[in-house]
């Protein structure tokens, strides 16, 4: 069950758009901010508020790489290995982080402090290559020493995925560098799931519950009725 503040945020997002379905992406961020990843229950509640079938919300969620489909570490480290970063030594940074955190790309450290991965998706920081994002903040011109200093500092910072409150509709909870924003309802809600610094987190179960949400409301196609498929000329063998 989502918290009252998140439900309120999702309702407000729904009413912000000309068509409620447009709010799916920001609503999923709200769920991830509160719960740390996209829980089936959270997505079902989003579907309910947006008057969609739960399967439609889940189908959208799996398309986008930034949503976590399973629990992740307290901090998320994303290292770019696309060309501009690779030309300036991204592979060395990746190797360093892999040794340092002692788990492969895509994995979570044993203490649950970090989930890290290397990505070919360019982060848009080529001018400061090699670059990475930690909890969605850019860190550029990396050196192994700079990475070490950052990881050491983050280890003592409470988890970003602990559900300890988040900026409204933000794609990620805040870290030490961006303190939680106070909302109109007062300071950021602490639902008791926030972790103490350094506390070891047991890996939560990764099995997913059945999608049991009711199919609520009608889902009018905002694009209008489908047009007839066009016939296309078939190329002859000579064209190939």
């Amino acid at each position, binding site marked *: 069950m989502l918290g009252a503040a998140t439900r309120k945020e999702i309702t407000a997002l729904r009413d912000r*758009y000309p068509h409620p379905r447009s709010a799916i992406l920001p609503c999923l961020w709200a769920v991830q901010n509160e719960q740390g990843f996209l829980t089936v229950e959270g997505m079902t509640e989003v579907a309910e508020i947006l008057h969609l079938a739960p399967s439609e919300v889940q189908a959208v969620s799996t398309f986008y790489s*930034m949503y976590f489909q399973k629990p992740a570490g307290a901090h998320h480290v994303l290292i770019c290995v696309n060309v501009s970063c690779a030309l300036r030594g991204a592979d060395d940074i990746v190797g360093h982080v892999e040794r340092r955190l002692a788990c492969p790309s895509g994995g979570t450290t044993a203490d649950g402090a970090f989930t890290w991965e290397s990505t070919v*998706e360019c982060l848009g920081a080529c001018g400061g290559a090699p670059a990475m994002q930690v909890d969605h903040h850019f860190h550029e011109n990396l050196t192994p020493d700079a990475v070490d200093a950052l990881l050491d500092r983050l280890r003592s910072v409470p988890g970003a995925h602990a559900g300890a409150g988040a900026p409204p509709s933000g794609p990620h909870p805040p870290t030490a560098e961006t303190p939680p924003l106070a909302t109109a309802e007062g300071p950021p809600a602490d639902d008791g799931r926030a972790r103490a610094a350094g506390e070891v987190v047991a890996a939560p179960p990764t099995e997913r519950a059945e999608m049991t949400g009711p199919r609520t409301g009608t889902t009018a196609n905002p694009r209008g009725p489908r*047009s007839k498929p066009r016939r296309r000329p078939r190329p002859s063998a000579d064209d190939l």
Partner: protein
Amino acid sequence: MAEHRLLTKNFGTEGLQTLAVYERLGGYQGLREAFQRFTPETLVDEVKASGLRGRGGAGFPTGMKWGFLPKDVFPRYLCCNADESEPGCFKDRKLIDENPHQLIEGLLIAAYALQVNVAFIYIRGEYFDQRLLLERCVEEARAAGHIGTDIHGSGFSCDVIVHGGAGAYICGEETALIDSLEGYRGQPRLKPPFPAIKGLYGKPTVVNNVETLSNLPHIVQRGGAWFKSIGTEKSAGTRLFCCSGHINRPGTYEMAMGTPIRELLEEECGGMWKDRSLKAFQPGGGSMQVLLPQHLDLALDMDAVQQAGSSLGAGAMVFMDETTCMVNVSMRLVDFYHHESCGKCAPCREGTYFESDLMHRLEAGACTSEELNTLADICDNMNGKCFCPLGDTATWFVMSAYKAFREEFDAHCGAGSCPVRSGAAQLVTA
């Protein structure tokens, strides 16, 4: 001719991200002048006269794109495409980081010209701080009466919604962006109908890049003719070039169109690093064909670069020095397209898989020359046969590199490791 600063003129001014400083430097005057001096129709004509072309990669004339909207069909929508994900490209992030109100003002001017009452800024999910900044700036502008109902007594009303993506390169393609904004998986749509006829929610929609929109306040204030006088005949104005790779000063540089690429590399970027020489470069980001040192004297001009067999694309220059393994670079780019293929059409979904598999084995030296011969076949089965440009562009770099550095590709076959990195093969240049 050094850097020509138009969009970046006030970059670095302290507090430029706040409305107060932006207005002190003449901000939102363009919006006021648009209301006073132009009707929506004459504003579209002015932008047509300016010769402004889209800065997202395709270089389509902006005014002409606007002119495609059918008359008397409302509501219409405007989307700012801030889903910048092209490998090597980071200009939109810079424009938002440094001068977010310039973009919002441009967006409102475009909204007025197109008579749009709801405008969106679709920003990629990775640009988290940039999104929060834009949201804050939109609220600031709203409080000051630049956004809302009856803006500055003009009778024109417009709302701006900042919409964050969640990690999908394909959403930079305009119809995929529209799909994503509607709350679907971001997969491209068949064109026609073009978004100008049937876009967001089935209504006429214009999608413009961040840099395109950021030009509008200047065009309104100083006139289309003035804008056209900068740059070349067919490529008017300035462009932000994102320079990265093996150079001394990576970064974003605003240059008038028509400047030679050599000047950008040697004067602005400080030349190649470590006193090494240039082996190859990409003039338009990860999608575009590789160019060689002899192309350095080309002008930064969309048509000139096109004639050389590549494209300026989104203005991302990636320079590679003599130690670079072109197979490795190709592998990473192919990996990128494999990762980002949306899965809608088979040539791209399967083709990028085969490409990626082949390039990984080639880079590891575990590929035979017979297998390498299939590369051209795979690419031929993709290029021009995919549903959207993503699949086509997935072949462009690797094919151009294969042609230009054929011997380097061949040297990888059966080598057991990357011969360039291990130093076993002499570096080959075309």
